[in-house]
């Protein structure tokens, strides 16, 4: 998800190199291999979650990067044994689960009783929450940028260039919110081809104003930093990092579409039971609080807030902070499992028109 084509390739290369070393080593029962997205994101995971959790359990956890759910599919289908746990967006897990390449998670081992609603699924134990928001250039609009999706799609009230994602994820939800659909009803409307077309027509209506279709978080952050576009859809954490870097960028939580990342287990791994216990350990609030110090992706475990494990100022920056979360809608992965291919093909068709 937060990857970048090039980084992804490097990641894949790194993984394949890593695999070579993995396969030659013999694995004891107390060793797990986990893969994630690399970069600042995995650094936070490593320091905040992976290693402390491994230490607490007295096991060894080896880390590597990977290229996403298609790598999991490759591994499972070819019968290779390369990693035991992967970090993935909820949507990726959902489609992997539908493909039958993932182990069902055992929630009698993994405690999700304190998770925020909807932040775990059969194949994915939610670990952090990010939001897709509408970000604007404060040099163009000052403080009064597009504070709702209706504003983002209103090219008369907010003239200027826009960027949207080159993939369908979260974009249709934004378009329907702009079209006046209540956030509770978004997935009801989207549950038919007509509903998908309605969202696509809304995007078509501003297509001449869309200067760039972005493909990665690094790219949309750069677009805002360089002033290449006046507003864009994108991940909150990227904008926060860009802002620290001097970018003139702001966003309103009212545009937030919450989505989450978690851990899954590829089908047929030998250390399945240990992997399950390790995921259970990583669900503890103290690890999530530590991770959030490194990037503004908030905890799925609400105990982090209830036990005040995070400084208040930092906690307020998280998408999942109750004060921020109350404005937002939550992305539903079951919709993606059902409609992704149809919606994605229609989206590409709209882009190429």
């Amino acid at each position, binding site marked *: 998800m937060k990857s970048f*084509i*090039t980084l992804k390739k490097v990641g894949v290369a790194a993984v394949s190199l890593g695999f070579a070393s993995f396969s030659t080593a013999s694995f004891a029962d107390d060793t797990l291999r986990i893969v994630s997205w690399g970069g600042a994101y995995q650094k936070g995971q490593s320091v905040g979650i992976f290693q402390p959790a491994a230490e607490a359990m007295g096991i060894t956890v080896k880390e590597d990067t990977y290229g*996403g*759910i*298609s790598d999991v*599919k490759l591994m499972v289908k070819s019968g290779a044994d390369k990693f035991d746990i992967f970090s993935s967006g909820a949507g990726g897990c959902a*489609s*992997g689960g539908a*493909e039958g*390449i993932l182990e069902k998670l055992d929630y009698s081992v993994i405690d999700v009783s304190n998770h925020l609603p909807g932040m775990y699924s059969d194949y994915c134990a939610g670990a952090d929450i990010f939001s897709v928001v509408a970000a604007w250039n404060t040099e163009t609009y000052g403080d009064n940028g597009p504070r709702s999706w209706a504003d983002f799609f209103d090219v008369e009230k907010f003239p200027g260039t826009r960027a949207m994602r*080159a*993939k369908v994820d979260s974009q249709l939800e934004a378009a329907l919110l702009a079209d006046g659909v209540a956030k509770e009803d978004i997935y009801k409307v989207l549950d038919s081809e007509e509903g998908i077309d309605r969202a696509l027509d809304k995007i078509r209506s501003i297509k001449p104003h869309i*200067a*760039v*279709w*972005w*493909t990665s978080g690094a790219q949309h952050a750069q677009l805002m930093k*360089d*002033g*290449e576009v006046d507003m864009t859809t994108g991940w909150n954490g990227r904008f926060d990092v860009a802002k620290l870097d001097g970018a003139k960028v702001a966003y309103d939580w009212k545009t937030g579409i919450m989505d989450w990342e978690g851990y899954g287990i590829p089908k047929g791994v030998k250390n399945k039971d240990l992997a399950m216990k390790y995921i259970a350990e990583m669900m503890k609030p103290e690890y999530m609080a530590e991770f959030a110090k490194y990037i503004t992706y908030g905890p799925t475990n609400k105990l982090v807030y209830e036990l005040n494990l995070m400084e208040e100022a930092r906690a307020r920056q998280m998408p999942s902070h109750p004060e921020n979360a109350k404005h937002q809608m939550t992305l539903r992965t079951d919709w993606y499992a059902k409609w*992704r*291919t149809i919606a*994605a*093909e*229609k989206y*590409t*068709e709209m*882009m*190429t*028109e």
Partner: protein
Amino acid sequence: MVGIEQNFNQAELAQLARREHYTFFGLTLPYLVLVGAMIIVPIGWLFLLSFIGRDGSFSFENYERMINSKAYIRIFLTTFKISILTTLFCALLGYPLAYFMSQIPRKWANICMIGVLIPFWTSLLVRTYAWLVLLQKKGLVNTVAVDLGLLSEPIKFVHNTSGTLIGMVHIMLPFLILPLYANMRAIDPHCVKAASSLGATPVRAFWTVFFPLSMPGLIAGLLIVFVLCLGFYVTPAVLGGGKVIMAAMKISSNIELYFSWGAASALGVVLLVVTMLILFIASKLVSLDQFGQRS
């Protein structure tokens, strides 16, 4: 030389010719095996995979999808449009440069060649991002032009077709220049001189003598550029801003979308077949033999 050759009789000559024949066949054998193992087999495999559906059984779904969605035909049209335009611009820019290099003394030509080759050795990714940095809305070119008053507002160079073409022409140019220059250097300068001595103007001598003799190099260069362009991924992805979607990009996104090699292979098969068709038609229109004969 002549005296020695006359000493051989017919039979010995034939035997020698046969031996040479087998020697050269033996030398090409490793290559043929390599082509078979590395090209023919994988392409056959690709072809088979394209008929395997998401559930693993034989199906035409990967091809049906291409017929049902207008996106695929548009993506193929974009792919060929961008490839043809890139090839054309490369020819327009590369031919005069290669000609110039072939006419100046070798020492200076070698210096020019370094200029051609240095960008060739630089990472494709680096060059692509360099164009982005130079040409974006608040990039170097636009900022300087606006500050100097040459432009009233920035020109949209990148995140569209023009940006993709600028990047691709820059990357592809050496592939056209190298075979063309080698060909032009090999053209006997006396041919052009002979034309002049028979009264041809320099322009006439160029078009009737030099240009036809340079055709094999030009056609080789055009073919290499065109075929390489068809598979381009990074440059259109970065400089096209999502406005230019080429076949390679859709192949990659189809793997992510369908989790099946078939969905991607079918695109590869169509691209391969259409390309071979285009090259076949082109070879009928422009007969290679016509220009291939040097004598």
